[in-house]
């Protein structure tokens, strides 16, 4: 369940790395930074969803609040 997400994040990271380099070589610095920001946001969305699940589970297990 979590393994595919890990590989997805790694894939996005590598892809963004390549895009960043390519756009930088083409002289489009601003586009390269936007590309990085978009990838970061996408991954952050996934991570935050998983984090919410973890916190919900911890609350459930340890009877917090």
């Amino acid at each position, binding site marked *: 369940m979590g393994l595919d*997400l*890990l590989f997805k*994040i790694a894939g996005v990271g590598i892809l*963004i790395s390549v895009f960043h380099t390519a756009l930088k070589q083409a002289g489009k610095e601003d586009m390269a930074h936007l590309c990085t920001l978009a990838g*970061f946001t996408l991954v952050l969305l996934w*991570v935050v969803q998983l984090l919410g699940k973890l*916190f919900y589970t*911890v609350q459930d297990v*340890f009877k917090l609040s």
Partner: protein
Amino acid sequence: MEIIKIVGIGFIVTMLVLMMKKDRPEFAIQLSLTLTIVIFLIILNKVQVVLQLFYDLAEKANISMMYLNTLLKIIGIAYITEFGAQVCKDAGEGAIAGKIEFAGKVMVMVMAIPIIALVIDTIVKLLP
């Protein structure tokens, strides 16, 4: 054999993080954060079984559920605090990790107040 799975995932993600740390450190942090969450989610299911045993034992020993619940809450707070602090420390933000740990300590203290009050009450009663 869940432990083999966890160690395997850990190795793979370590390689990926090493690969990515040089030019994309933010993705490396997100990768390690996700790995931590995944491992915690796997482990928490096991923890639940142990906690059920504790509940059964407490019921047999006629211990008030209040104490056990407080104890569990403290463990949970310590767990989440440690998790947050470690992620921040991994990212190189030792100051933020210190603040999180401080907040966790205060929260644990607040949770322990009823028990401390009870202990002091008992001591006062014992005194002539």
